[in-house]
């Protein structure tokens, strides 16, 4: 299921891990660029999930029998 691809928790955990790495200066500049795009992507995914309706979920909910 599309929404299960990255959960909020996984996203936050990954972002925090990356932040920690940066704080501990474990990343060189080249890796930094890579991680920047990764974090941006994760944040975008989370924001999308928070604010944009996923048609797929709605469809499943509507089709549910009661």
């Amino acid at each position: 299921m599309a929404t299960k691809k990255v959960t909020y928790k996984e996203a936050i955990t990954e972002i925090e891990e990356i932040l920690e790495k940066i704080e501990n200066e474990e990343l060189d500049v080249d890796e930094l660029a890579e991680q920047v795009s990764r974090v941006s992507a994760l944040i975008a995914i989370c924001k999308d999930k928070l604010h944009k309706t996923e048609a797929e979920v709605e469809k499943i909910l509507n089709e549910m029998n009661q």
Partner: protein
Amino acid sequence: MTVNRSGHCYLDLIETEAGTDTVIARCRATIWSYTFRMLKPYFETTTGQAFSNGLKILVQAKVEFHEVFGMSLNIRDIDPVYTLGDMARQRQEIIRKLQDDGVFEMNKELELPLVPQRIAIVSSPTAAGLQDFIDQLHNNPHHFVFYTKLFPAVMQGTDAPRSVMNALELIYEYEDMFDAVVIIRGGGAQIDLACFDNYELAFHAAQFPLPIITGIGHDKDDTVLDMVAHTRMKTPTAVAEFLISGALTFAQQLNELETHFIELVNEQLEANKDRLMDAADQLNLLVNQFVSKQTNRLEIAGIQLKNQAESFLKSQQTDLNKVTSNTKNRTERYISLQNHILEQSVQELSFTFRKQVLKSENKLTRLEQLLKSGTTGILRNEKKNLNRISEKLRLVDPQNILKRGYSLTLLNGKIVKSIDQISEGDQLETRLSDGIIESIVEKISNKE
């Protein structure tokens, strides 16, 4: 229990055997309307419980007997405190049982997702609070998306536990589709909550695999269902706020992380930039130092080279001078030596030569004298010999021989000594003392 039009309440009082539903005593009772009008609200506000079937009550009653209807109790007063105590006792019993079953904390142990977005709602479709709840969720000011699905259930009365359980079972089939279950009851009277103090319902709810959030709409004691639920909220509105605040907290956390992240990245970049600049400065400095150092060394080396070259040249010059003067001296010495030797040789040679010449002169003189003295004797002898030989020679002169009659035969100027030298036809010359005869050979014959 029935209440008729005129407001009189007719009810059956029963006693059941402990632990079973077997009735062991029964009695009819009535509460006249003027009493009932006062008793009912008092009971309900005190107990928070609708005055309905299934309650255990303590009453003050007057026993009456009627010829047609038989014996009945005319209830004058009800002590709600007794019922309250009984309800509390029953509830405690249920809680203890759930704890004994080991399920009491189970739903609380589930992890509520960071953002519960997909909500299964268990409620009565007609409840006023339901639509408010849904509107509140969907029109939240932060524009978070929530997915809601209603699973209808009866929310009051004795049917409620079974109905709610059915709804939960249905949700269970779609477990993966939801983040949480919300059980709400739209506002209204805070009565008839006893149905949620149900063992079976609590037992199911506690073990439900999704977190359950309750908003049953009361502020008094929690029902058992509230107790076993993951999160207990007082009203549906509070539940909606709870869900929205969850999303909001997450969104804020996300923003903070984002800000923090950007700061960190910028810091890191700045630090890297600084390091780069520092390194560049350092490099510049080092290079300059190195260059000037090398320049110095080069200059020093240049000076040293010049000095050394000069001193070397000087020393070479000196050496050369020495060698030159040495050579000159030696050459001169050698030449003078050679000259000397040559002179000596010349003197020796001239001396020897003179000696030799002198010797030779002496010898020559001696030889001359010897020759002079010797020649005179020899000449005399030789004169004698010559006279003798002349005499002899006169005797053997061919002319003389020829005069004596002998002749010479020549062929082509050569003396013929044998017949083998000639052949017939040859022209022979025959010399006589007074002339020459020429003849042709006619015949040759041997002596014999």
